[in-house]
């Protein structure tokens, strides 16, 4: 079936099987491999993307369900050659080690900060409960999100 979406502002139209998961569509059909597959069961958040502005785990959505929608992946956050403030904050505060969780973490943080522009540290920890990182122990990730909130 044909699936037509806008990904990071660019139209994408691909013929895929109905059983194609959104994360597979993004990685394999759109060739946007910044979105990672982690647990495949909506537990880890590595595959988080924004669908019509709301964060979702793209392993639990069919590409067919996204037909007609607008998707933002990690590749689409930078504007005019400048990283998104959340990306900058992750870099400045060393909010990553291996990087596998990072794109999902950043997109979850972007979505979280849209809804909670002035979060406390506890708010950030609660807000990112759906994103697992096996390297950092979260401390620098939380500091990065707080710094991004302050910089907005």
């Amino acid at each position, binding site marked *: *079936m044909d699936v037509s979406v806008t990904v990071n502002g660019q139209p994408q139209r691909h*013929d*895929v*099987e*109905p*059983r*194609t*998961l959104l994360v*597979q569509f993004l990685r*394999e*059909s759109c*060739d946007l*491999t910044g979105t990672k597959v982690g647990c*495949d*069961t*909506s537990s880890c*958040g590595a595959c*988080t993307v924004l669908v019509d502005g*709301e*964060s*979702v*785990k793209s*392993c*639990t*959505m*069919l590409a*067919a*369900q996204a037909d007609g929608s607008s998707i933002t992946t990690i590749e689409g956050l930078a504007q005019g050659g400048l990283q998104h403030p959340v990306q900058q904050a992750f870099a400045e505060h060393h909010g990553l080690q291996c990087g596998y969780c990072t794109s999902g973490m950043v997109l*979850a943080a972007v*979505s*979280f900060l849209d809804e909670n522009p002035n979060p406390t540290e506890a708010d950030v920890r*609660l*807000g990112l*409960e*759906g*994103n697992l990182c096996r390297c950092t122990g979260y401390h620098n990730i939380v500091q990065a999100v707080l710094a991004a909130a302050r910089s907005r």
Partner: protein
Amino acid sequence: MRKRSAKPPLALPCRPVKPAPFEYHAPATTADALAVLAEHGDEAKPLAGGQSLVPMLALRLTRFGHLVDLNRVPELAGIERHNGTVTVGTMTRQADLERSPDAAAVPLLGLATPLIGHFQIRNRGTVGGSIAHADPAGELPAVVLTLDAQLDIASASGTRTVSASEFFEGTWTTVVGDDELLTAVHFPVWADGAGFAVDEVARRLGDFALVGVVCGVELDGSSKVTRAAIGLLGMGGTPLRAAAAEQALVGTAPTDDELTEIGRLAVADLDPPADIHASTEYRSSVGAHVVKRALRTALERAGG
């Protein structure tokens, strides 16, 4: 690691797929959705928010020949308050329920919903999907049972309404037939001043609860309980009501010791499941404590 630049040319697109194949239906109306279900029976499965179903399909724990995606049926979503009832359409997102001023008339919805999964999951997950999925550790099924909600179930031949006490049959099993769809849930609004609490023990935030309690109390002028409802999750194959504990609570202004006893009474006749995370004994012991803790909170919120 695969080198993307060295991809061999392929005559046919070769892309990874995880679920078994199915035919995808995206009806625009409830009637169209019911017609597909009527045609395909147990070969068809409604797809609501997909937060349980899609992982189960991807892991091939289940498979269906036909998926009926309800996400393009606008009439199935929405929250309305009528006299004494809040009606929630089956495709209402859990995130929308959290934010809804109308749903605030049923405080248990606002207390229970943030405990479902993570915010990304609640952005997609639906009220009806969670209830019809009927996970015994699910929060919304326990709220449905605790509040004696009424559930509308439609098929191509009409709509029936069933009580929460008749709805849940077992783990992941309800009275909704293969050709039927849960379309709306009616939650009763309790009196002003009623107190509610949801409390659960999970290994991590957002994980399924090992044990959970959903409760509500109403008090009279002398702080005696006039109405009590206690629901348990994770303690059996379905959400459960602690009827004996409810009866023991009504008419009292319970002391701390009496609440301990009511907690024990709530789990006394249960045989909760054992799994890798918690034994039967652990669930019973923790369950009694969580009932007490939740009731104390609900009583405080009710001004008791």
